């Protein structure tokens, strides 16, 4: 099906009830309607793209500035590259990204070991604060985990 652009000036009654003041975005937006012209503004200088920056396929380019925190790498990076083939409108984008995040955690632990660092996971999780401010809660949790493990252990042993 072919679609031709429509000249709305030829439409009877076009715009006769337009009311610019009826704007639910006011006062959050000082309406200029510039976006109706498209991606036409005078862009800021482009930050040199010398690392891998994934960009949404809902835009044509990398933004004028971008973060350089942690470029994609390893297996999680491969999953992220795959995810970026899909738009923000698609589960094909977000679900692989969540998966990549989980894979990345394992990569992080491996990296730590490679760099001769044993991650102190309890400290990273702030258990010192939990011990100080919520000792009973923490002990309760430990007791529950302990009880469940014991029962599981006994059940497994019985099976064997």
């Amino acid at each position, binding site marked *: 099906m072919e679609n031709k652009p429509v000249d709305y000036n030829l439409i009877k009654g076009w715009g006769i009830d337009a009311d610019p003041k009826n704007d639910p975005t006011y006062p*959050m937006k*000082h309406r200029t309607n510039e976006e109706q012209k498209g991606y036409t503004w005078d862009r800021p200088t482009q930050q040199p793209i010398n690392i891998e920056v994934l960009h949404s396929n809902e835009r044509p380019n990398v933004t004028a*500035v971008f973060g350089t*925190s942690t470029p994609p790498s390893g297996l999680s990076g491969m999953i992220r590259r795959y995810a970026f083939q899909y738009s923000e409108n698609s589960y094909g984008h977000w679900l692989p990204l969540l998966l990549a*995040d989980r894979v990345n*955690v394992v990569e992080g632990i491996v990296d730590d070991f490679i760099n001769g660092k044993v991650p102190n996971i309890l400290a990273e999780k702030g258990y010192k604060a*939990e011990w100080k401010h919520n000792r009973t809660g923490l002990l309760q949790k430990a007791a529950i985990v302990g009880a469940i493990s014991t029962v599981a252990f006994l059940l497994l042993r019985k099976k064997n």
Partner: protein
Amino acid sequence: MNYRGPKRVRIDHKPMPEIMHPQDAIVRVTRSCICGSDLHLYNGNVPDTRVGMTFGHEFTGVVEEIGSEVQKLKVGDHVLVPFNIACGKCAFCKQELYGNCHESNSQATAVGGIFGYSHTAGGYDGGQAEYVRVPYADVGPTVIPEGMDPDDAVMLTDVVPTGYQAAEMGGIQKGDTVVVFGAGPVGIMAAKCAWLFGAGRVIVFDQLEYRLEFVKNYAQCEAYNFREIDDVVVFVKKTTDWMGADVCIDAVGAEAAGNAMQTITGRKTLLQAGSATALHWAINAVKKGGIVSIVGIYGPTDNLVPIGNLVNKGITIRANQASVKRLLPRLIEHVQSGVLNPKALITHRIPLEEVSDGYRIFSAKLDNCIKPVLIPPSARI
């Protein structure tokens, strides 16, 4: 600060940030808060949160170095830095939608760039650090006015504008009943600001007694524990003579409690983009033709909310990331005149080195925590 995985953060040494763009500045951080928004990252709920990233979008600091195109900011200026990264030139910035800039986030078009907020918000390392790279240094960063306490200044980077905008988006008319869900820093500030727009009644819901006690005093409002109420929506209907609230504000977002089905699908299994309990309540508790203002943050996929009721009741939804820069001039006035006293929300001052404990305290709501601020070593002397 270095993110290692869900609920795991620690301090590590990272290379000094460098100027990467002529409009960049490097800022030495003096204050940096942990925010309810950081909890979505901390819990591992925001897609594309990469291991090794530094969080932190609420910070103040001293300018150490500037790029060649920076004109307004000078080395040595003590600035507060809005959480949104905004170019000031795109069609959205020009309409003062600084939270929706089109030149600061490559990874997603649905959100502008935010400091320290995953690659879905641009991949910038944030301010829970000693030094941070600040792009578009002439647009967002604002010199802290003479005499202003840095604790007040850091609250102007997010909490105050977000609470204020939550009330502003409510389109509050004089005498309106405003219901705020959430008595975290954002909800507390929204309740306080609702009065500035002429609310006739302000009612806050939360489940944490200490926060309800705080908001009742700080914002001079009514405060109720939803755990002690059978059905929040019926409660609101009854107390408004069966009409519903004129305005409902969602200041909770994706970590909401209070509904087992929402919690399991939204927080435990991530089948939806966070638990939408507060938003669900807001839509059902507002009057016909009422306004629901959302500042609570949700993930990028879908949430379970009663859209049918929205249509049938003719509700208007207004929502956004706060446009910090747009609101700053007015809010600085409010702080200077004493109308707003944001630093009163700060309950914990934590050395940056103890960031793991800081996150734990704020996320598990230990030690009656409302707002924690991290202080780097160089700002403690």
